[in-house]
């Protein structure tokens, strides 16, 4: 049976430490832009931790929400790409073919989650980070879009290894860099087609919601959070 990769993000476990972001940058050869370029909105974080503040000082609560590509089943980014650079692959991932991208940036506009990033310049890394590029991940040139791939290079490697041993991928043996780095295991990755996988069981949790579900993009990422998300005394 085909895989259908998905993720669960437990907001009640997330501490906002941003280890996922760092791991993602290291794994996926994401260019680090200079501070002044970051201030101009050119920073690329395939996963980001959104912070929302509730209440007035001193009764303030901070909410963290890691946002990465939601790997939508009905992805708004795919239909609008004039060259098929953005398309759904056989595992249900929203794949981005870097070589086919001409940089219309339409996908980024159509994406309601703003999780697609554009290479405004050729990528560069401050020394010595240029020595630690991941050889399994292509480096993206100026003028193209990039986004979270669910660490497709790891998925490919795991599939090849499993095929060599004539078995399926064992649940939990494959993790993208963000889930691997998460100290509180707030991020859980796995195959949604396997009803007994951890991610499939968690995504059926009554705590589960989808981000901007009403837009109908059918994301494969489920957010778990204690209900309700506001102060109990408001009831």
């Amino acid at each position, binding site marked *: 049976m085909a895989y259908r990769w998905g993720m669960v993000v437990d907001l009640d476990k997330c501490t906002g430490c941003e280890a996922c972001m760092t791991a993602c940058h290291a794994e996926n050869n994401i260019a680090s832009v200079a501070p002044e370029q970051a201030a*101009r*909105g050119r920073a690329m974080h395939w996963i*980001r931790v959104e912070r929302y503040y509730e209440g007035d000082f001193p009764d303030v609560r901070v909410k963290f929400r890691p946002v990465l590509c939601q790997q939508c089943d009905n992805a708004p980014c795919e239909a609008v790409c004039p060259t098929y650079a953005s398309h759904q692959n056989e595992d249900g991932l929203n794949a981005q073919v870097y070589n086919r991208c001409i*940089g*219309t940036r339409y996908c980024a*506009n159509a994406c309601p989650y*703003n999780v697609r990033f554009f290479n405004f310049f050729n990528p560069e890394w401050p020394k010595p980070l240029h020595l630690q590029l991941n050889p399994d991940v292509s480096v993206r040139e100026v003028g193209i879009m990039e986004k979270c791939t669910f660490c497709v290079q790891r998925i490919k490697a795991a599939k090849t290894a499993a095929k060599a041993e004539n078995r399926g991928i064992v649940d939990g043996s494959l993790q993208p860099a963000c889930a691997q780095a998460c100290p509180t295991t707030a991020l859980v990755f796995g195959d949604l087609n396997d009803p007994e996988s951890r991610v499939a069981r968690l995504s059926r949790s009554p705590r589960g919601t989808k981000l901007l579900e009403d837009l109908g993009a059918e994301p494969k990422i489920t957010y778990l959070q204690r209900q309700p998300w506001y102060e109990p005394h408001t009831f």
Partner: protein
Amino acid sequence: MDRTLNKGLNDDLVRPLFNTSVWFYAVVLAAGTVVACGAAAWSYQLWNGIGVSGKRWPTFWALYLTNFVFWIGISHAGTLISAILRLVNAGWRRPVTRCAEVITVFALMIGAMFPIIHLGRPWLAFWLFPYPNQRELWPNFRSPLAWDFFAINTYLTGSVLFLFLPMIPDFALVRDRSTGWRRRVYGALSLGWRGTTKQWNRLETAMQIMAVAILPVAVSVHTIVSFDFSMATVPMWHSTIFGPYFVAGAIFSGIAALIIAMAALRKALRLERYLLPLHFENLGKLLLLMSILWAYFVFNERLTVWYGNEPHEMAVFWATQRGTYAPLYWTMVVCNFVVPFIILANPRTRTIPGCVIASFGVVIGMWLERFLIIVPSLTHKQLPYSWGTYWPTPVELYIMAATFAAMVLLYALFAKFVPIIAIWELKAGDFVHAPDAGVGAADPHRLDAGASSPARPGAAS
């Protein structure tokens, strides 16, 4: 119409082709310099990447796409207006049509540049062509950008034909009055025109067909441009009103551009006897109508959003209505509605200067409208954490200035090499060039074989 009148017409309207004033060189030099600066700016951007523009996460479309929509809008000046006026057989159209059709072709050429300037990797723009290739890759026909590509190419092809067909008899006229290289060039352009009855009939039939065919193309092209926005679930983009709203805005800005171009030509080429106050008066009335229609569309769009009170849309709504973009928004309302309405609703101010002032207002206002459609929505998408901002950089402004200069440059060059007023059309409609005599009542548009019209223009001059 007698021979002397014909000769006067010919002399007046062909004169700019043979006599060059120092002003022509001045305009070409000035506009050419600005265009060269823009070309340098684009080269700089090609070398370094789109990062030299002000675009950022999440404002991935901004000034270039604003100019794209703006120029495609301006392009509706010509073909649409001239086709409508031809079809309803409005006699006063005759001196106006070519000025209008040229705007279409040049504005389309300029507008179609912007999606390429805006690409991350413009050298791969040809991937939008459905050309056969070894890997059997096709463009994605589900993408509104692919629709755009075909719509604009169709419109450009149609407009060039629509412009070229009625130029043939005038090319023949210039051919017959010139010698040397000019004779050879205009001879080739006139495609062997001799002015026979058969040729006239064919030309008239072709013009009728083109005028009918170009209307749906013109309407569809700006509707498809609007689909670039309305197909995405971006707040305030995802709206059913966008198609007609964009088309109305396009015709609106197109008429304004036409009035400005006509006023400039009238002064520069001394065409006071041909471009009469009546033409400005009539186009002014059309502009007034479109201004009211535009206000109606804006009211509809804004009221439904406000009443629906949907949080994502309200963020954009208030950002334009009284937030960051409010100064631009209210400038737009003043430029597009208040100023044109006050000037053009009053017959005493609906003069040539009045129409030109109103038109400048409309051009500015419609540019702002395009900007206000694109940028506030992208900077206020659904997740408030990802809200952003946008500020243009000099590179973008140079390129934008260059396109306005390019329009002036192309227009000046065109008026230098082609009679800017369709001479044969002027003769075909009993055009009396005395400003107080009005424009001919009897206006047999179709020059049927053996018609009694004494002036069989073109051939005999």
